[in-house]
Protein backbone atom coordinates (compact mmCIF):
# COMPACT_ATOMS: atom_id res chain seq x y z
CA UNK A 1 0.00 0.00 0.00
CA UNK A 2 3.02 2.23 0.48
CA UNK A 3 5.48 2.00 -2.39
CA UNK A 4 8.67 4.06 -2.26
CA UNK A 5 11.10 4.11 -5.17
CA UNK A 6 14.53 5.79 -5.04
CA UNK A 7 13.32 8.58 -2.78
CA UNK A 8 15.74 11.41 -1.99
CA UNK A 9 15.26 14.67 -0.16
CA UNK A 10 17.72 17.52 0.01
CA UNK A 11 17.53 20.45 2.41
CA UNK A 12 19.68 22.96 0.60
CA UNK A 13 22.93 21.05 0.19
CA UNK A 14 22.22 18.53 2.92
CA UNK A 15 21.00 15.17 1.71
CA UNK A 16 18.55 14.10 4.41
CA UNK A 17 17.13 11.07 2.62
CA UNK A 18 19.30 9.28 0.10
CA UNK A 19 17.82 6.93 -2.51
CA UNK A 20 15.46 5.05 -0.22
CA UNK A 21 13.18 2.31 -1.57
CA UNK A 22 10.79 0.11 0.35
CA UNK A 23 7.20 -0.99 0.47
CA UNK A 24 4.62 -1.70 3.12
CA UNK A 25 1.67 -3.95 2.35
CA UNK A 26 -1.67 -4.51 4.03
CA UNK A 27 -1.47 -6.27 7.38
CA UNK A 28 2.12 -5.24 7.93
CA UNK A 29 3.58 -3.05 10.65
CA UNK A 30 6.88 -1.77 9.40
CA UNK A 31 9.21 -0.11 11.87
CA UNK A 32 11.43 2.70 10.77
CA UNK A 33 14.43 2.54 13.04
CA UNK A 34 17.34 4.89 13.15
CA UNK A 35 19.30 7.33 15.27
CA UNK A 36 18.05 10.91 15.63
CA UNK A 37 18.49 12.86 12.43
CA UNK A 38 18.72 9.75 10.26
CA UNK A 39 15.90 10.84 7.98
CA UNK A 40 12.92 8.98 9.46
CA UNK A 41 10.72 12.04 9.94
CA UNK A 42 11.78 13.57 6.65
CA UNK A 43 10.76 10.41 4.78
CA UNK A 44 7.40 10.50 6.53
CA UNK A 45 6.91 14.17 5.73
CA UNK A 46 7.54 13.41 2.08
CA UNK A 47 5.12 10.47 2.10
CA UNK A 48 2.36 12.60 3.62
CA UNK A 49 2.94 15.44 1.17
CA UNK A 50 4.25 17.99 3.64
CA UNK A 51 7.53 18.06 1.75
CA UNK A 52 8.17 17.34 -1.91
CA UNK A 53 10.76 14.70 -2.83
CA UNK A 54 13.92 15.95 -4.51
CA UNK A 55 14.11 12.73 -6.48
CA UNK A 56 12.24 9.47 -6.72
CA UNK A 57 8.60 8.58 -6.43
CA UNK A 58 6.23 7.19 -3.87
CA UNK A 59 2.66 6.06 -4.00
CA UNK A 60 0.08 5.44 -1.35
CA UNK A 61 -2.81 3.09 -1.99
CA UNK A 62 -1.91 3.29 -5.69
CA UNK A 63 -1.94 7.09 -5.86
CA UNK A 64 1.28 8.87 -6.69
CA UNK A 65 2.11 11.43 -3.99
CA UNK A 66 3.05 14.07 -6.56
CA UNK A 67 0.56 13.24 -9.31
CA UNK A 68 -2.53 12.67 -7.18
CA UNK A 69 -1.60 14.25 -3.86
CA UNK A 70 -5.14 14.66 -2.53
CA UNK A 71 -6.14 11.05 -3.24
CA UNK A 72 -2.87 9.85 -1.70
CA UNK A 73 -3.43 11.96 1.42
CA UNK A 74 -7.03 10.81 1.76
CA UNK A 75 -5.68 7.29 2.21
CA UNK A 76 -3.29 8.24 5.01
CA UNK A 77 -3.76 8.81 8.70
CA UNK A 78 -0.74 10.72 9.92
CA UNK A 79 0.61 11.34 13.39
CA UNK A 80 3.42 13.90 13.08
CA UNK A 81 6.36 13.82 15.44
CA UNK A 82 5.40 17.14 17.03
CA UNK A 83 1.74 16.15 17.62
CA UNK A 84 0.84 19.83 17.42
CA UNK A 85 -2.85 20.45 18.09
CA UNK A 86 -5.01 23.55 18.33
CA UNK A 87 -4.81 24.12 22.08
CA UNK A 88 -7.86 26.37 22.26
CA UNK A 89 -10.23 23.77 20.77
CA UNK A 90 -12.17 21.12 22.65
CA UNK A 91 -11.23 17.50 21.94
CA UNK A 92 -14.53 16.69 20.21
CA UNK A 93 -14.55 19.98 18.27
CA UNK A 94 -11.05 19.27 17.07
CA UNK A 95 -11.91 15.75 15.97
CA UNK A 96 -15.04 16.99 14.19
CA UNK A 97 -12.95 19.58 12.37
CA UNK A 98 -10.33 17.01 11.36
CA UNK A 99 -13.05 14.59 10.26
CA UNK A 100 -14.59 17.17 7.97
CA UNK A 101 -11.19 18.10 6.59
CA UNK A 102 -10.35 14.45 5.97
CA UNK A 103 -13.56 14.09 4.01
CA UNK A 104 -15.45 11.80 6.38
CA UNK A 105 -19.12 11.96 5.24
CA UNK A 106 -20.98 14.27 7.62
CA UNK A 107 -23.47 11.56 8.60
CA UNK A 108 -20.67 9.30 9.80
CA UNK A 109 -18.52 11.83 11.63
CA UNK A 110 -20.18 11.56 15.05
CA UNK A 111 -20.03 7.75 14.94
CA UNK A 112 -16.36 7.78 13.96
CA UNK A 113 -15.55 10.30 16.72
CA UNK A 114 -17.23 8.10 19.34
CA UNK A 115 -15.30 5.13 18.03
CA UNK A 116 -11.82 6.72 18.07
CA UNK A 117 -12.48 8.26 21.48
CA UNK A 118 -13.20 4.76 22.76
CA UNK A 119 -10.24 3.12 20.99
CA UNK A 120 -7.77 5.74 22.17
CA UNK A 121 -9.10 5.83 25.74
CA UNK A 122 -10.11 9.49 25.57
CA UNK A 123 -13.54 9.05 27.14
CA UNK A 124 -12.91 11.03 30.32
CA UNK A 125 -11.10 13.83 28.46
CA UNK A 126 -13.54 14.22 25.57
CA UNK A 127 -15.11 17.42 26.84
CA UNK A 128 -11.96 19.19 27.88
CA UNK A 129 -9.98 21.70 25.88
CA UNK A 130 -6.86 20.28 24.28
CA UNK A 131 -4.75 22.87 26.10
CA UNK A 132 -5.72 21.28 29.43
CA UNK A 133 -4.50 17.80 28.48
CA UNK A 134 -1.23 16.18 29.49
CA UNK A 135 1.41 15.15 26.97
CA UNK A 136 0.16 11.56 26.96
CA UNK A 137 -3.39 12.64 26.17
CA UNK A 138 -2.13 15.00 23.47
CA UNK A 139 -0.54 11.97 21.89
CA UNK A 140 -3.81 10.06 22.10
CA UNK A 141 -5.74 12.90 20.48
CA UNK A 142 -3.13 12.91 17.72
CA UNK A 143 -3.58 9.18 17.28
CA UNK A 144 -7.39 9.49 17.38
CA UNK A 145 -7.20 12.09 14.61
CA UNK A 146 -5.04 9.75 12.51
CA UNK A 147 -7.55 6.91 12.88
CA UNK A 148 -10.60 9.09 12.34
CA UNK A 149 -11.27 8.43 8.67
CA UNK A 150 -10.39 4.73 9.10
CA UNK A 151 -7.65 5.13 6.47
CA UNK A 152 -6.01 2.09 4.85
CA UNK A 153 -2.54 3.50 5.55
CA UNK A 154 -1.18 4.83 8.83
CA UNK A 155 2.05 6.79 9.15
CA UNK A 156 2.95 7.27 12.80
CA UNK A 157 6.03 9.26 13.75
CA UNK A 158 7.16 8.06 17.18
CA UNK A 159 3.66 7.15 18.36
CA UNK A 160 4.70 6.23 21.91
CA UNK A 161 6.89 9.22 22.70
CA UNK A 162 5.82 11.09 25.80
CA UNK A 163 3.68 8.26 27.13
CA UNK A 164 4.12 6.51 30.45
CA UNK A 165 4.98 2.78 30.44
CA UNK A 166 1.37 1.67 30.92
CA UNK A 167 0.20 3.88 28.08
CA UNK A 168 3.04 2.62 25.86
CA UNK A 169 1.88 -0.95 26.34
CA UNK A 170 -1.69 0.13 25.60
CA UNK A 171 -0.83 2.04 22.44
CA UNK A 172 1.36 -0.80 21.17
CA UNK A 173 -1.50 -3.22 21.72
CA UNK A 174 -3.84 -0.85 19.92
CA UNK A 175 -1.50 -0.60 16.94
CA UNK A 176 -1.19 -4.37 16.75
CA UNK A 177 -4.97 -4.77 16.99
CA UNK A 178 -5.77 -2.48 14.07
CA UNK A 179 -2.85 -3.70 11.98
CA UNK A 180 -4.64 -6.57 10.27
CA UNK A 181 -6.70 -4.23 8.13
CA UNK A 182 -4.05 -1.61 7.47
CA UNK A 183 -0.56 -0.90 6.26
CA UNK A 184 1.32 0.80 9.08
CA UNK A 185 4.65 2.58 8.95
CA UNK A 186 5.89 3.72 12.33
CA UNK A 187 9.15 5.25 13.35
CA UNK A 188 10.90 4.72 16.61
CA UNK A 189 14.32 4.87 18.14
CA UNK A 190 13.38 2.39 20.82
CA UNK A 191 14.74 -0.99 19.72
CA UNK A 192 12.54 -3.25 21.87
CA UNK A 193 9.52 -1.40 20.50
CA UNK A 194 10.52 -2.22 16.95
CA UNK A 195 11.22 -5.83 17.92
CA UNK A 196 7.96 -6.14 19.84
CA UNK A 197 5.50 -4.38 17.56
CA UNK A 198 6.81 -4.54 14.03
CA UNK A 199 6.56 -7.38 11.57
CA UNK A 200 9.43 -5.92 9.60
CA UNK A 201 12.13 -3.39 10.40
CA UNK A 202 13.86 -0.83 8.18
CA UNK A 203 17.09 0.54 9.57
CA UNK A 204 17.99 3.98 8.31
CA UNK A 205 21.21 5.84 8.94
CA UNK A 206 22.41 9.12 7.47
CA UNK A 207 19.50 9.06 5.06
CA UNK A 208 20.34 5.63 3.68
CA UNK A 209 18.50 2.38 4.19
CA UNK A 210 21.14 0.10 5.70
CA UNK A 211 19.11 -2.91 6.73
CA UNK A 212 15.71 -4.44 6.15
CA UNK A 213 14.00 -7.55 7.39
CA UNK A 214 12.33 -9.21 10.35
CA UNK A 215 14.30 -8.94 13.56
CA UNK A 216 15.44 -12.56 13.00
CA UNK A 217 16.70 -11.79 9.52
CA UNK A 218 18.50 -8.72 10.77
CA UNK A 219 20.24 -10.74 13.47
CA UNK A 220 21.55 -13.10 10.80
CA UNK A 221 22.85 -10.20 8.73
CA UNK A 222 25.61 -9.28 11.09
CA UNK A 223 28.38 -11.62 12.20
CA UNK A 224 27.59 -11.55 15.87
CA UNK A 225 29.42 -13.03 18.80
CA UNK A 226 28.58 -15.01 21.86
CA UNK A 227 29.76 -13.37 24.99
CA UNK A 228 30.33 -15.00 28.40
CA UNK A 229 31.05 -13.16 31.59
CA UNK A 230 32.56 -15.40 34.20
CA UNK A 231 33.67 -14.94 37.81
CA UNK A 232 35.98 -17.52 39.33
CA UNK A 233 37.93 -18.09 42.52
CA UNK A 234 41.08 -20.18 42.73
CA UNK A 235 42.49 -22.65 40.21
CA UNK A 236 45.77 -22.59 38.32
CA UNK A 237 46.11 -21.47 34.71
CA UNK A 238 42.38 -21.36 34.24
CA UNK A 239 42.58 -18.50 31.72
CA UNK A 240 44.94 -20.46 29.46
CA UNK A 241 42.65 -23.49 29.62
CA UNK A 242 39.61 -21.39 28.73
CA UNK A 243 41.46 -19.94 25.77
CA UNK A 244 42.02 -23.42 24.40
CA UNK A 245 38.31 -24.23 24.20
CA UNK A 246 37.04 -24.69 20.66
CA UNK A 247 35.45 -21.57 19.12
CA UNK A 248 36.88 -19.10 21.61
CA UNK A 249 38.29 -15.99 19.96
CA UNK A 250 39.46 -14.06 22.98
CA UNK A 251 39.55 -14.10 26.75
CA UNK A 252 40.25 -11.03 28.82
CA UNK A 253 40.60 -11.26 32.54
CA UNK A 254 41.46 -9.21 35.58
CA UNK A 255 41.75 -9.84 39.26
CA UNK A 256 39.28 -8.19 41.58
CA UNK A 257 39.68 -8.89 45.33
CA UNK A 258 40.90 -12.38 44.73
CA UNK A 259 38.14 -13.09 42.24
CA UNK A 260 38.97 -13.55 38.60
CA UNK A 261 36.59 -11.71 36.24
CA UNK A 262 36.77 -12.98 32.66
CA UNK A 263 35.05 -11.94 29.49
CA UNK A 264 35.10 -14.59 26.78
CA UNK A 265 34.14 -13.90 23.21
CA UNK A 266 33.22 -16.93 21.11
CA UNK A 267 31.99 -17.50 17.57
CA UNK A 268 28.32 -17.11 16.86
CA UNK A 269 26.20 -20.18 17.58
CA UNK A 270 28.69 -21.90 19.84
CA UNK A 271 27.34 -22.72 23.30
CA UNK A 272 30.25 -23.03 25.72
CA UNK A 273 28.42 -22.91 29.05
CA UNK A 274 28.86 -26.60 29.95
CA UNK A 275 32.48 -26.67 28.82
CA UNK A 276 33.27 -23.60 30.90
CA UNK A 277 31.80 -25.31 33.93
CA UNK A 278 33.75 -28.53 33.29
CA UNK A 279 36.99 -26.64 32.68
CA UNK A 280 36.59 -24.73 35.92
CA UNK A 281 35.90 -27.90 37.87
CA UNK A 282 38.90 -29.69 36.28
CA UNK A 283 41.18 -26.77 37.15
CA UNK A 284 39.90 -26.78 40.71
CA UNK A 285 38.41 -23.31 40.59
CA UNK A 286 35.02 -22.29 41.90
CA UNK A 287 32.61 -20.87 39.38
CA UNK A 288 30.86 -17.92 41.04
CA UNK A 289 29.03 -16.42 38.10
CA UNK A 290 28.31 -17.23 34.46
CA UNK A 291 26.33 -14.95 32.19
CA UNK A 292 25.75 -15.56 28.52
CA UNK A 293 24.57 -13.09 25.92
CA UNK A 294 24.41 -13.37 22.16
CA UNK A 295 24.00 -10.82 19.41
CA UNK A 296 21.12 -8.49 20.08
CA UNK A 297 19.24 -6.14 17.85
CA UNK A 298 21.28 -3.40 19.49
CA UNK A 299 24.46 -4.92 18.07
CA UNK A 300 22.84 -5.13 14.66
CA UNK A 301 21.69 -1.57 14.93
CA UNK A 302 25.03 -0.26 16.06
CA UNK A 303 26.91 -2.22 13.42
CA UNK A 304 24.59 -1.19 10.58
CA UNK A 305 24.32 2.45 11.52
CA UNK A 306 28.00 2.64 12.35
CA UNK A 307 27.22 4.62 15.46
CA UNK A 308 29.98 4.84 17.98
CA UNK A 309 30.82 6.86 21.03
CA UNK A 310 27.92 8.66 22.60
CA UNK A 311 25.28 7.04 20.46
CA UNK A 312 26.60 3.58 21.11
CA UNK A 313 26.69 4.19 24.83
CA UNK A 314 23.20 5.61 24.85
CA UNK A 315 21.89 2.72 22.81
CA UNK A 316 23.56 0.05 24.90
CA UNK A 317 22.47 1.60 28.16
CA UNK A 318 18.94 1.80 26.79
CA UNK A 319 19.28 -1.87 25.88
CA UNK A 320 20.53 -2.64 29.38
CA UNK A 321 17.46 -1.07 30.92
CA UNK A 322 15.11 -3.17 28.88
CA UNK A 323 16.88 -6.44 29.67
CA UNK A 324 16.06 -6.06 33.31
Amino acid at each position, binding site marked *: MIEVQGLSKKYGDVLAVDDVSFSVSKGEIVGFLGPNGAGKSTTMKVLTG*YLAPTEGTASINGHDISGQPL*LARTAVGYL*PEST*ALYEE*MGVVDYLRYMGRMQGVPSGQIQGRIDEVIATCGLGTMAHKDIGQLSKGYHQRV*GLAQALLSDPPVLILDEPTSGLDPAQIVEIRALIKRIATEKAILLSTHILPEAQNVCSRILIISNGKLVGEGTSGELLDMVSGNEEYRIRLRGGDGIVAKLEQLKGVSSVTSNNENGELACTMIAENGVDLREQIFDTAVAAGSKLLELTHSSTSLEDVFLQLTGTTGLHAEAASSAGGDTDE
Partner: protein
Amino acid sequence: MNRISTVWDREFRAFWLSPIAYIIIIAFLALTNFLYFRTFFLEGQASLRVFFDFLPWTFMLILPALTMGQWAEERKTGTIEPLLTLPVTEWQVVLGKYLASVSLLACILLLTTPLVLTVSKLSTNGIDGGQTMMSYFGALLLGASYLAIGSWVSSFSDNQIVAFILSLAAIAVLLFVGLPFVTYFVEGGFSVFLRNLGLTTHYSSLGRGVLDMRDLLYFGSVIYLFTFLTTRMVESRKWS
Protein backbone atom coordinates in the same frame (compact mmCIF):
# COMPACT_ATOMS: atom_id res chain seq x y z
CA MET B 1 -15.80 24.53 -1.32
CA ASN B 2 -16.64 22.31 1.63
CA ARG B 3 -13.00 22.35 2.80
CA ILE B 4 -12.82 26.14 2.46
CA SER B 5 -15.89 26.60 4.64
CA THR B 6 -14.52 24.11 7.20
CA VAL B 7 -11.29 26.10 7.49
CA TRP B 8 -13.29 29.33 7.59
CA ASP B 9 -15.47 27.97 10.38
CA ARG B 10 -12.52 26.89 12.54
CA GLU B 11 -10.59 30.10 12.01
CA PHE B 12 -13.57 32.34 12.67
CA ARG B 13 -14.37 30.50 15.90
CA ALA B 14 -10.69 30.64 16.91
CA PHE B 15 -10.84 34.45 16.79
CA TRP B 16 -13.59 34.43 19.40
CA LEU B 17 -11.92 31.74 21.52
CA SER B 18 -8.84 33.88 21.91
CA PRO B 19 -8.87 37.40 23.34
CA ILE B 20 -7.65 38.78 20.00
CA ALA B 21 -11.07 39.53 18.48
CA TYR B 22 -12.28 41.37 21.56
CA ILE B 23 -9.13 43.39 22.00
CA ILE B 24 -9.13 44.41 18.35
CA ILE B 25 -12.79 45.37 18.36
CA ILE B 26 -12.53 47.38 21.56
CA ALA B 27 -9.36 49.11 20.45
CA PHE B 28 -10.83 49.92 17.07
CA LEU B 29 -14.13 51.25 18.37
CA ALA B 30 -12.42 53.30 21.06
CA LEU B 31 -10.03 54.81 18.55
CA THR B 32 -12.59 55.62 15.86
CA ASN B 33 -15.14 57.05 18.26
CA PHE B 34 -12.52 59.14 20.00
CA LEU B 35 -11.15 60.50 16.75
CA TYR B 36 -14.62 61.18 15.43
CA PHE B 37 -16.24 62.86 18.41
CA ARG B 38 -13.12 64.85 19.21
CA THR B 39 -13.92 67.19 16.35
CA PHE B 40 -17.62 66.44 15.98
CA PHE B 41 -18.95 69.29 18.11
CA LEU B 42 -16.34 71.73 16.92
CA GLU B 43 -17.35 71.37 13.33
CA GLY B 44 -20.98 71.66 14.25
CA GLN B 45 -21.83 69.59 11.23
CA ALA B 46 -23.16 66.04 11.13
CA SER B 47 -21.02 64.42 8.50
CA LEU B 48 -19.54 60.98 8.29
CA ARG B 49 -16.72 62.24 6.14
CA VAL B 50 -14.27 62.45 9.04
CA PHE B 51 -15.12 58.91 10.16
CA PHE B 52 -14.42 57.39 6.76
CA ASP B 53 -11.32 59.56 6.24
CA PHE B 54 -9.78 58.16 9.39
CA LEU B 55 -10.41 54.53 8.47
CA PRO B 56 -7.30 53.93 6.30
CA TRP B 57 -5.18 54.94 9.31
CA THR B 58 -7.08 53.21 12.07
CA PHE B 59 -7.27 50.05 9.94
CA MET B 60 -3.54 50.27 9.37
CA LEU B 61 -2.92 50.15 13.12
CA ILE B 62 -5.52 47.53 13.95
CA LEU B 63 -5.91 45.02 11.11
CA PRO B 64 -2.33 43.70 11.03
CA ALA B 65 -3.01 42.37 14.54
CA LEU B 66 -5.74 40.22 13.03
CA THR B 67 -3.54 38.51 10.47
CA MET B 68 -0.15 38.51 12.22
CA GLY B 69 -0.70 35.07 13.70
CA GLN B 70 -2.52 33.54 10.75
CA TRP B 71 0.48 31.56 9.51
CA ALA B 72 3.23 32.58 11.93
CA GLU B 73 1.38 30.88 14.79
CA GLU B 74 0.66 27.68 12.84
CA ARG B 75 4.30 27.41 11.94
CA LYS B 76 5.52 28.16 15.43
CA THR B 77 3.30 25.59 17.16
CA GLY B 78 3.69 23.07 14.33
CA THR B 79 -0.05 22.72 13.66
CA ILE B 80 0.71 23.61 10.05
CA GLU B 81 2.00 20.08 9.45
CA PRO B 82 -1.16 18.12 10.30
CA LEU B 83 -3.14 20.84 8.49
CA LEU B 84 -1.28 20.68 5.20
CA THR B 85 -1.04 16.90 5.14
CA LEU B 86 -4.84 16.72 5.05
CA PRO B 87 -6.47 16.15 1.67
CA VAL B 88 -6.75 19.89 0.99
CA THR B 89 -4.94 22.23 -1.36
CA GLU B 90 -2.94 25.17 -0.05
CA TRP B 91 -5.30 27.47 -1.93
CA GLN B 92 -8.31 26.15 0.00
CA VAL B 93 -6.59 26.70 3.35
CA VAL B 94 -5.34 30.18 2.41
CA LEU B 95 -8.79 31.21 1.21
CA GLY B 96 -10.57 29.78 4.26
CA LYS B 97 -8.27 31.61 6.63
CA TYR B 98 -8.43 34.82 4.63
CA LEU B 99 -12.21 34.80 4.44
CA ALA B 100 -12.39 34.24 8.20
CA SER B 101 -10.40 37.42 8.77
CA VAL B 102 -12.58 39.32 6.28
CA SER B 103 -15.65 38.10 8.16
CA LEU B 104 -14.27 39.51 11.38
CA LEU B 105 -13.61 42.77 9.56
CA ALA B 106 -17.27 42.80 8.48
CA CYS B 107 -18.28 42.32 12.13
CA ILE B 108 -16.09 45.26 13.12
CA LEU B 109 -17.64 47.48 10.47
CA LEU B 110 -21.10 46.39 11.57
CA LEU B 111 -20.28 47.56 15.08
CA THR B 112 -19.67 51.09 13.81
CA THR B 113 -23.31 51.42 12.69
CA PRO B 114 -24.41 52.93 16.06
CA LEU B 115 -22.07 55.83 15.34
CA VAL B 116 -23.55 56.27 11.89
CA LEU B 117 -27.11 56.07 13.23
CA THR B 118 -26.31 58.62 15.93
CA VAL B 119 -24.93 61.04 13.40
CA SER B 120 -27.90 60.62 11.08
CA LYS B 121 -30.30 61.35 13.99
CA LEU B 122 -28.38 64.48 14.95
CA SER B 123 -28.13 65.73 11.43
CA THR B 124 -30.82 68.19 10.39
CA ASN B 125 -31.19 67.06 6.81
CA GLY B 126 -30.15 63.43 7.32
CA ILE B 127 -27.23 61.66 5.69
CA ASP B 128 -26.97 60.28 2.20
CA GLY B 129 -27.83 56.60 2.61
CA GLY B 130 -26.49 55.54 -0.77
CA GLN B 131 -23.20 57.29 -0.28
CA THR B 132 -22.83 55.82 3.21
CA MET B 133 -23.45 52.30 1.89
CA MET B 134 -20.87 52.87 -0.80
CA SER B 135 -18.40 54.21 1.77
CA TYR B 136 -18.89 51.08 3.84
CA PHE B 137 -18.34 48.96 0.75
CA GLY B 138 -15.13 50.87 0.10
CA ALA B 139 -14.06 50.39 3.72
CA LEU B 140 -14.65 46.64 3.41
CA LEU B 141 -12.56 46.45 0.23
CA LEU B 142 -9.83 48.59 1.78
CA GLY B 143 -9.72 46.47 4.95
CA ALA B 144 -9.82 43.27 2.90
CA SER B 145 -6.77 44.51 0.99
CA TYR B 146 -4.93 45.16 4.25
CA LEU B 147 -5.81 41.66 5.44
CA ALA B 148 -4.51 40.10 2.19
CA ILE B 149 -1.22 41.95 2.68
CA GLY B 150 -1.13 40.88 6.34
CA SER B 151 -1.74 37.22 5.45
CA TRP B 152 1.10 37.29 3.01
CA VAL B 153 3.53 38.82 5.52
CA SER B 154 2.43 36.29 8.15
CA SER B 155 3.13 33.46 5.70
CA PHE B 156 6.85 34.15 5.75
CA SER B 157 7.52 35.41 9.27
CA ASP B 158 8.02 33.15 12.25
CA ASN B 159 7.37 35.86 14.77
CA GLN B 160 4.01 37.57 15.27
CA ILE B 161 5.47 40.90 16.34
CA VAL B 162 7.68 40.97 13.25
CA ALA B 163 4.65 40.06 11.13
CA PHE B 164 2.66 42.90 12.69
CA ILE B 165 5.32 45.53 12.05
CA LEU B 166 6.12 44.35 8.53
CA SER B 167 2.42 44.28 7.57
CA LEU B 168 1.98 47.77 8.96
CA ALA B 169 5.00 48.93 6.96
CA ALA B 170 3.80 47.27 3.75
CA ILE B 171 0.34 48.81 4.12
CA ALA B 172 1.89 52.21 4.90
CA VAL B 173 3.89 52.07 1.67
CA LEU B 174 0.74 51.39 -0.38
CA LEU B 175 -1.05 54.17 1.45
CA PHE B 176 1.65 56.79 1.12
CA VAL B 177 2.60 56.33 -2.55
CA GLY B 178 -0.76 57.70 -3.65
CA LEU B 179 -0.84 60.73 -1.37
CA PRO B 180 -0.23 64.21 -2.76
CA PHE B 181 2.85 64.83 -0.66
CA VAL B 182 4.57 61.96 -2.50
CA THR B 183 3.11 62.40 -5.99
CA TYR B 184 3.91 66.11 -5.83
CA PHE B 185 7.61 65.41 -6.03
CA VAL B 186 7.57 63.23 -9.15
CA GLU B 187 7.06 64.09 -12.79
CA GLY B 188 3.82 63.85 -14.81
CA GLY B 189 3.16 60.29 -15.95
CA PHE B 190 4.86 58.64 -13.01
CA SER B 191 2.89 60.84 -10.65
CA VAL B 192 -0.37 59.55 -12.16
CA PHE B 193 0.91 56.00 -11.88
CA LEU B 194 1.76 56.44 -8.21
CA ARG B 195 -1.56 58.07 -7.46
CA ASN B 196 -3.37 55.13 -8.98
CA LEU B 197 -1.13 52.65 -7.17
CA GLY B 198 -2.06 54.15 -3.82
CA LEU B 199 -4.87 52.64 -1.76
CA THR B 200 -6.41 55.95 -0.67
CA THR B 201 -7.09 57.15 -4.22
CA HIS B 202 -9.46 54.25 -4.87
CA TYR B 203 -10.89 54.30 -1.40
CA SER B 204 -11.89 57.95 -1.54
CA SER B 205 -13.27 57.48 -5.02
CA LEU B 206 -15.70 54.88 -3.66
CA GLY B 207 -16.32 57.16 -0.67
CA ARG B 208 -17.72 59.82 -2.95
CA GLY B 209 -20.42 57.31 -3.78
CA VAL B 210 -19.15 56.52 -7.25
CA LEU B 211 -18.96 52.87 -8.25
CA ASP B 212 -16.12 52.81 -10.73
CA MET B 213 -15.00 49.53 -12.30
CA ARG B 214 -11.39 50.68 -12.10
CA ASP B 215 -11.56 50.90 -8.32
CA LEU B 216 -13.15 47.46 -8.05
CA LEU B 217 -10.50 46.08 -10.38
CA TYR B 218 -7.79 47.71 -8.27
CA PHE B 219 -8.95 46.24 -4.95
CA GLY B 220 -9.70 42.90 -6.63
CA SER B 221 -6.15 42.81 -7.99
CA VAL B 222 -4.53 43.69 -4.67
CA ILE B 223 -6.54 40.99 -2.86
CA TYR B 224 -5.92 38.39 -5.55
CA LEU B 225 -2.21 39.19 -5.83
CA PHE B 226 -1.52 38.90 -2.12
CA THR B 227 -3.63 35.78 -1.51
CA PHE B 228 -1.87 34.24 -4.52
CA LEU B 229 1.54 35.16 -3.07
CA THR B 230 0.45 33.72 0.29
CA THR B 231 -0.48 30.43 -1.39
CA ARG B 232 2.87 30.32 -3.14
CA MET B 233 4.68 31.07 0.09
CA VAL B 234 2.81 28.30 1.92
CA GLU B 235 3.60 25.88 -0.91
CA SER B 236 7.26 26.82 -0.92
CA ARG B 237 7.89 24.89 2.33
CA LYS B 238 7.79 21.71 0.23
CA TRP B 239 11.03 22.58 -1.50
CA SER B 240 12.80 24.12 1.45
